């Protein structure tokens, strides 16, 4: 029986962590993810979990703690945001390349500067090449569901990679909304026990983790890491299928909203996808064939699937809540445009940088982007492909 509840996105993630009962949490507080270790430390204090909570002195140490715990054969989790994720940087790469399936809840916040505590995706998008699997959530429900699925994905023998579960800071992390929770036993059974084949403290086969890798082997290891990321695609779908059986909620690499006959489309990540769905609905009422693709999995990037989903549209707006300062578009735009390169008939693609540093993403702005698409669909190519949305001129 699903449990009808209402709670914030942060509480939902902490709730999932309690149900999973990991061996170790290493965490250092930073807005807006602070509530996650805060809620979780209460579960620890109440004896509701057996987790060893390590209150470290920095995020670099938080990730180091998780690496140590996971390498020793335990299951480790953490939560962070913005500068906290940035301070983990070096260790993010170590976690991924050591093939340690740690689970990190990233509550997305702008990465300074100027200093800002509000939402955008510049923190996790900066970590997109660190070798972590990245899942993004539209709301508290998806934040909870993704976290429940993360370990099954990361710990799979064909994958063995850490997973970053992202949700939008404040917008979903601090908003109370309805949610359907699963019962403790169901989550526990779904996630299962962590039984790594080899680990640091296995007495039958002791090993060292993270030693110097010489020129003779480094590239082979990197190739294996790349293969693991490719393998993650099938595992993500398999886990989603199993999750549907216990939750009746369907997940894939991305959600297609009214895309079947869409002529113009928006590709977007996170909470703003919900706002954009309302815009799609109102455009449909006007007879405009609008659709939306909401990216759930950014790493690995579902390139061929995205290309297929966009093949029939005339024009699409690719929405980036982070800039990569390439001078020609944000990270999602680069991926989507690259994915569409092999299409015989390519849609017109434009990029919008939007919602930086908590700039409120409103239906009227998203509608403007759709209206522009209708123009491009008629005219063909736009004058430019790299725009900013909702910015004062």
């Amino acid at each position, binding site marked *: 029986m699903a449990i009808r509840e209402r709670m914030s996105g942060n509480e939902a993630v902490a709730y999932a962590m309690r149900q999973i009962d990991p061996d170790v949490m290493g965490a250092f507080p930073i807005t*807006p993810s602070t509530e996650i270790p805060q809620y979780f430390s209460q579960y620890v204090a109440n004896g509701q979990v057996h987790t060893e909570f390590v209150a470290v002195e920095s995020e670099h140490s938080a990730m180091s703690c998780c690496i140590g715990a996971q390498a020793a054969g335990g299951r480790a989790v953490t939560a962070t945001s913005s500068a906290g994720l940035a301070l983990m940087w070096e260790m993010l790469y170590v976690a991924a390349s050591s093939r340690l399936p740690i689970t990190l809840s990233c509550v997305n916040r702008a990465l300074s500067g100027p200093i800002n*505590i*509000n939402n955008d995706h510049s923190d996790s998008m900066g970590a997109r090449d660190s070798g972590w699997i990245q899942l993004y959530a539209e*709301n508290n429900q998806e934040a909870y569901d993704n976290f429940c699925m993360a370990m099954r994905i990361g710990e799979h023998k064909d994958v063995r990679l850490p997973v970053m579960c992202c949700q939008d800071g404040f917008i979903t992390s601090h908003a109370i909304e309805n949610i359907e929770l699963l019962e403790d036993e169901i989550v526990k059974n779904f996630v299962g026990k962590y039984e790594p084949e080899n680990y640091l403290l296995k007495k039958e086969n002791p090993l060292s983790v993270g030693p110097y890798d010489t020129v003779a082997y480094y590239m082979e290891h990197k190739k294996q890491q790349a293969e693991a990321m490719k393998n993650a695609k099938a595992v993500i779908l398999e886990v989603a299928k199993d999750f549907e059986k216990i939750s009746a909620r369907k997940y894939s690499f991305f959600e297609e909203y009214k895309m079947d006959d869409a002529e113009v489309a928006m590709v977007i990540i996170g909470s703003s996808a919900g*706002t954009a769905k309302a815009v799609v609905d109102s455009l449909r009422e006007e007879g405009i064939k609008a659709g939306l693709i909401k990216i759930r999995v950014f790493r690995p990037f579902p390139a061929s699937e995205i290309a297929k989903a966009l093949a029939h549209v005339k024009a699409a707006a690719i929405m980036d809540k982070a800039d990569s300062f390439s001078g020609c578009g944000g990270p999602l735009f680069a991926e989507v445009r690259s994915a569409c390169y092999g299409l015989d008939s390519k849609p017109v693609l434009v990029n919008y940088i939007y919602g930086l540093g908590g700039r409120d993403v409103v239906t009227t702005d998203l509608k403007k982007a759709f209206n522009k698409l209708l123009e491009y669909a008629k005219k063909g190519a736009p004058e430019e492909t790299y725009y900013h949305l909702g910015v004062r001129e």
Partner: protein
Amino acid sequence: MQEMTEIRWHGRGGQGAKTAALLLADVAFNTGKYVQGFPEYGPERMGAPITAFNRISDVRCTIHSNIYQPDYVVVVDETLIASVDVTKGLKPEGAIIINSAKEPEDLRASLSGFSGRICTIDANRIAEECIGRPIPNTPMLAAVVKVSQLLDDEAFLKDMEQSLAHKFASKPQVIEGNLKALKRSLSEVKG
């Protein structure tokens, strides 16, 4: 009732406007609604103007932006009227609910031409007399329920009684005071 009700709260940091918005989300949730309750975050400090929001409907709302055309505006601190455009975007068929000892019509001149319904409730006095401290959020919550008719009075009181009993299990005197404040507010809201 219309499809979705949108409410914007204006208060000052530390007064409990955010808590009141989250409480309203709670009680609406308990009566079977889909809810959103969220504050607008920034570098807050005690006394600075803050905003919080509610969306309440029978279906899940996917919009995740602030509210610009609210059905109701709640002003937890009357002094904000002088510095914040509290009626901005407020639907003329909606209402503004102000924590004030004044008569509703006495406030119209200071509401930048708002032509709709104005309601007042002396929430500070009710809180002081019933709870013993001037914390206006509980009586403001009841006033919003009364004016918006989002929930049935009795169902609201019953739900609040349960959640207060849960929250203040070790302090039964607090429960009684809060319930009294809610009941008085339901009957004393003007306009």
